């Protein structure tokens, strides 16, 4: 007797709600388990999404500290909740970004000893789409064109977008304004990585200089700061920045968010 592999169903295969499949229930439970274990819940944000639709969030750190790893974990959390993530990279090719996700997911699955992680991975993969550009070839109108293509062709409609690698300098503000309009038309949450530099002193409150001119456009901002042998995840803006909220840590060995529990 063959199983009904509903976890691999495509849009062409409507699910029968009349039958509960044990396998699918198991996967739902597995997914929920991983979602509940999401350490970011402890940062005090109102929802797992952290941002509302149409809002911007930034993850800031020096090169190599863990911005991409952090955002990949955010993305995986969304994918587990069957939200669609569009990951745009201006630094890395598709293969490398894909590897990031695979690697981080494997580590999470190992950490929490999730069984059938391979099949779970197959079930969340359709919720991610990677787009890469060269820095000089990237523009908001181009992104809009690509996004429209994806949505109109019914290929992929993102709930969350990650933009990894935009150089945040003086000229980025107009682009961000245009992007804000764009996400207004296609409601989604957008996370950016901002690379800070050792030679640039931040503000007294620790806010990186690149962020200050555009801070108004962002509803959440997270700073990753090496502290001793670990990396502190510090919320600079947004609900997680409230004084009574604990800071989380990133394990530099696995690049996973450490669960304080």
């Amino acid at each position, binding site marked *: 007797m*063959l199983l009904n*592999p509903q976890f691999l169903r495509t849009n062409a295969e409507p699910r029968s709600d009349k039958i509960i499949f044990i396998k699918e229930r198991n996967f739902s439970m597995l997914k929920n388990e991983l979602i509940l274990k999401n350490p970011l819940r402890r940062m005090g944000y109102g929802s797992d999404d952290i941002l509302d639709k149409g809002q911007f969030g930034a993850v800031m750190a020096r090169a190599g500290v863990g911005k991409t790893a952090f955002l990949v974990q955010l993305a995986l959390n969304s994918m587990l909740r069957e939200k669609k993530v569009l990951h745009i990279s201006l630094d890395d090719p598709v293969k490398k970004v894909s590897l990031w996700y695979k690697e981080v997911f494997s580590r999470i699955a190992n950490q929490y000893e999730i069984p059938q992680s391979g099949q779970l991975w197959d079930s969340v993969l359709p919720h991610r789409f990677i787009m890469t550009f060269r820095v000089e070839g990237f523009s908001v109108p181009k992104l809009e064109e690509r996004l429209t293509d994806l949505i109109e062709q019914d290929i992929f409609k993102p709930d969350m977008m990650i933009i990894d690698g935009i150089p945040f300098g003086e000229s980025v503000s107009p682009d961000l304004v245009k992007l804000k309009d764009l996400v207004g038309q296609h409601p989604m949450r957008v996370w950016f990585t901002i690379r800070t530099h050792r030679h640039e002193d931040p503000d007294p409150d620790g806010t990186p200089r690149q962020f200050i001119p555009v801070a108004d456009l962002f509803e959440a901002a997270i700073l990753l700061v090496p502290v001793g042998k670990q990396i502190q995840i510090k919320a600079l803006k947004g609900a997680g920045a409230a004084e009574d909220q604990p800071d989380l840590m990133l394990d530099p060995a696995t690049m996973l968010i450490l669960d304080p529990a």
Partner: protein
Amino acid sequence: MKKDIRNLRNIGISAHIDSGKTTLTERILYYTQRIHTMHDVKGKDGVGATMDSMELEKERGITIASAATYCEWLGHEINIIDTPGHVDFTIEVERSLRVLDGAILVLCGVAGVQSQSITVDQQMKRYKVPCIAFVNKCDRSGANPERVVRQLKEKLGHNAVAMQLPIGLEADFEGVVDLVSMKAVYFGGDKGEEVRLAEIPADLMQAALDRREILIDQASMFSDELTEAILEEQDVTTEMITDGIRAGVVARQLTPVFMGSAYKNKGIQPLLDAVTQLLPCPLDVENQALDMNKEEQPIVLSNEIDKPLVALAFKLEDGPYGQLTYIRVYQGALAKGDTIVNVRTGKKVKVGRLIRMHADQMEDIDTIPAGYIGALFGIDCASGDSFVTPGVSLTMTSMYVPEPVISLAIFPKDNKSEVNVSKALGRFTKEDPTFKAYVNDETGDTIISGMGELHLEVYIERMRREYQAEVDTSPPRVAYRETITQKAEFDYIHKKQTGGAGQFGRVSGYMAPAPDEDFVFENKIVGGAIPTQFIAACEKGFKNSMVKGPKMEFPVTGIRVVIDDGASHSVDSSDMAFQAAARGAFLQGYAKAKPVIHEPIMKVVVETPTEFQGAVMATLNQRRALIVGTQDEGPFTVIEAQVPLSEMFGYSTDLRSVTKGQAQFTMEFLTYKQVPQSIAEALMKKAAEEKKNVA
């Protein structure tokens, strides 16, 4: 063959489909008096053009195989290879450009740069072949040579410069203005054989002067003499301009553009003049070989006929008189009776008959000197083999052979056809490295692969005509797999003890999924429940059961079997008994282990002009693809997807259709994944029907 190599031109004629290559070659042969009558490619007289000698070519009006010929013009000897325009026959272009010194890129005056124009341009780049462009069909409605020149610059990145101006266009196309001599050229007589020079029409004079300025400016980039003459306001002679342009062409930094209409017999003679004046002779081209004694260090070959022979076989044809091998000699000379060595096989061969080709006609010759192309009979070799004088350790690099993109399963209709299919495939695969044939070990099907549907269609038709081998075709069968998805226990007794020698064996344990393995067998028997000597038989029984899965008879994979208990009989237990017990245990456990069907998933990477990426993604989406991502590469986008192999049949045709032939894709095996329920049901239904039919 003439002796002065400086007056020799080895050229190819390449272009997109139906640009007029074969018609152009027909005119060239006529005006050089190589032939005395012109025929149309698909003319009413049914004769066909000279270079399309295959019946199939004449019937379909397409060039399938490249054809070589030679002619003379203005004291120059010109070897010409006319090539096909369809991407299906790309190997013909590949092998021709590998051995030629120059090329004419033919472009349609209406459509301009098309998909195969881009491909042949890339092929010319690969082999560093200088070219001149010919904008054909200037008599057609919508012809615009100026637009084509622009496209050459924008789409192919050529430094294109018009050498002529059209006098009239479309139905009013009369001739051309030669911007070097500043004369109008008209083509009279029945077949355009009378070239008449005249003054430039007054209304075209200004445009001619402007274009000439541009031409001179471009030519001066490659000629100090011309630059000096311009700066010092001296007379600029036609020789200075021609020399400058020639230097630019040979350096592959300038593409002079000519125009005309081959079908209307206009513009061919000036093009021939340009071949002799602007394209390189063998001495102008640096040819390299690799020294096998010095770790393949490149060595520049000399064209001297006194030096040791170095030659490259670039095409084979198996005919009634044996194998005809087309060869280009790069150094030394190849003479009848010579003993030469095939570098790849190390075998010495004696040169028998030497031939020079004129389409499908042969002319016996005594020698092929350096710089020339000829053919040999009676030498068994492969395309791309190098031949050298004994003792020489040099070899030439072969031509690039693209991988096939489409496959078909073929089934001979009767026994006679089966034998003939085998012969036909043996010959075709030897002649055409892009046409492959093999037997699928799993399904037993004979699979043929090629560069496109037309490619395979032509070979199937040739099998029928030349070998009387009739075949049916179908998409290749997909190699599905079965596996289990949960742990299941088994406890099976195989017993036949009804009198006399019996059989007894009991096997107990469990099976579980092992996703990264094919088959894992673990023996956890304690206390000798199954005697040690029978453990191997148990393993064999389980392994044999996996060859054809119980559900759909697909191979089973990804199973870990652990035996932890059992029983034996002192007399009736044997290897055979435990094999049978293991088989029974397998079936028992398998049924409880929630078996599923897996299908091969391919990693598909499509490279497409960015303007088509939406359409390409739609084609993938329609084929159950999981699109992993897109990589923006400026004018091109690379799309990566994971697609079930069963959905990929015919994809190359679809992709060509939505991208006007400008996209390419590669496909490699990635992994096996579970098929969706609907597909599993369809497969089961099909298997049941097949069983019913067989019964």
